[in-house]
């Protein structure tokens, strides 16, 4: 790690001003990606602004039609939350399969989506469940949030404060993990929410994407069988030592079917 200055603001407003005052500041949520990145010397921020003391960013609430999750809520808290397990079990399942138990005890939803790792699980939940991302500046709808590999619509000084997930009628998430890192090689969230069907794929491409073919197949018949003829193009999909683009394309179909079968 290179040297950096540290700030421990107690509010979102203080955090934002700490960033403004820094040459090249970086917010830190749970740190489960940022700290390894710093250790590998792949980033060299002048200042790290630790959001750990910002109480207003924590907590899970049932807002009637939606479940609202504070940005600094850990994956373990989401996975074990009564509200989430009862209202959106697919989301609890997803959160309970991120990384490993220790990562889940530190890593947060806000940190994960702000980082926008192409192989992270949460992007599939944001897009598949059509969530709204709240920040200290505005609210961003799911389809506008992820803009590319490690890219989001967030401004430099914008802090994710919470994410609202509309309660789906049915949703399911299945992932094919990278055997080494356990990130998603392919993760698929399928959901029916307010009569709309969404299929969001993470891990396979440079950023989370929706499969319109799968969505239209499921719109009329929300069953694994409806996806039998689904042909996923491997163009634009990722290829690495763990999985080729062709194999990822194939897995999108398999995981989508399994997600539908698992949907509750």
């Amino acid at each position, binding site marked *: 790690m290179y040297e950096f*200055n*540290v700030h421990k603001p107690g509010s979102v407003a203080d955090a934002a001003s700490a960033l403004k005052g820094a040459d090249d500041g970086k917010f830190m949520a749970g740190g489960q990606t940022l700290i390894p990145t710093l250790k590998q010397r792949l980033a060299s921020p002048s200042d790290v602004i630790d959001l750990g003391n910002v109480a207003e960013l924590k907590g899970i609430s049932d807002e009637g039609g939606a479940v609202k999750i504070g940005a600094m809520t850990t994956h*373990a808290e989401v996975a074990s939350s009564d509200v989430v397990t009862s209202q959106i079990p697919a989301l609890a399942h997803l959160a309970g399969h991120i990384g490993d*138990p220790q990562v889940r005890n530190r890593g947060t939803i806000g940190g994960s989506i702000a980082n926008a790792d192409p192989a992270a699980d949460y992007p599939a939940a944001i897009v598949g469940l059509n969530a709204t991302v709240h920040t200290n500046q505005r609210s961003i709808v799911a389809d506008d949030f992820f803009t590319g590999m490690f890219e989001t619509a967030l401004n430099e000084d914008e802090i994710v404060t919470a994410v609202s997930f509309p309660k789906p009628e049915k949703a399911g998430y299945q992932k094919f993990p990278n055997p080494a890192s356990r990130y998603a090689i392919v993760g698929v969230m399928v959901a029916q929410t307010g009569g709309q069907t969404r299929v969001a794929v993470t891990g396979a491409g440079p950023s989370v994407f929706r499969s319109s073919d799968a969505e239209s197949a499921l719109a009329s018949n929300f069953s694994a069988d409806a996806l039998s003829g689904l042909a996923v193009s491997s163009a634009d999909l990722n290829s690495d030592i763990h999985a080729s683009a062709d194999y990822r394309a194939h897995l999108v179909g398999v995981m989508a079917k399994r997600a539908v079968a698992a949907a509750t």
Partner: protein
Amino acid sequence: MVSVSMTVNGKAVTKDVEPRTLLVDFLRQHLSLTGTHVGCDTSQCGACVVHIDGKSVKACTALAMQCDGVEVTTIEGLANGGDLHPMQAAFREHHALQCGFCTPGMIMSAVDLLENNADPSEKEIREWLEGNICRCTGYHNIVKAIKACAQDMRG
């Protein structure tokens, strides 16, 4: 330098450290608690697992300054005086360690598992250990020890 205060194994400690100091280095170098090990640099191996406020975390993936005000338990603080924690005893009884390097993290992780799930199945144990790598045992006896410990602790 930043000042960091926390309770480690029941003792209050305060130290001035560089902001870039990892919790694991704080424990090993500033407090000479060398039972917590470092086996990788990508947060996967789990040799560094300790408890922060009762939950297992990777001490290599937390900055000391993030841990201001928390309670940390390391492998050195797990036994109650001369009495081994049941998980420590189970690891010995079931030969769940060989070189011993992953063992502290493995035990701290296993203790947290039983906090969350008093009666885990073999599958649940194996899934929980996703963040702990052992190169010696093939995990067979680790799983056995955790299962036996769970049974003992349930009584």
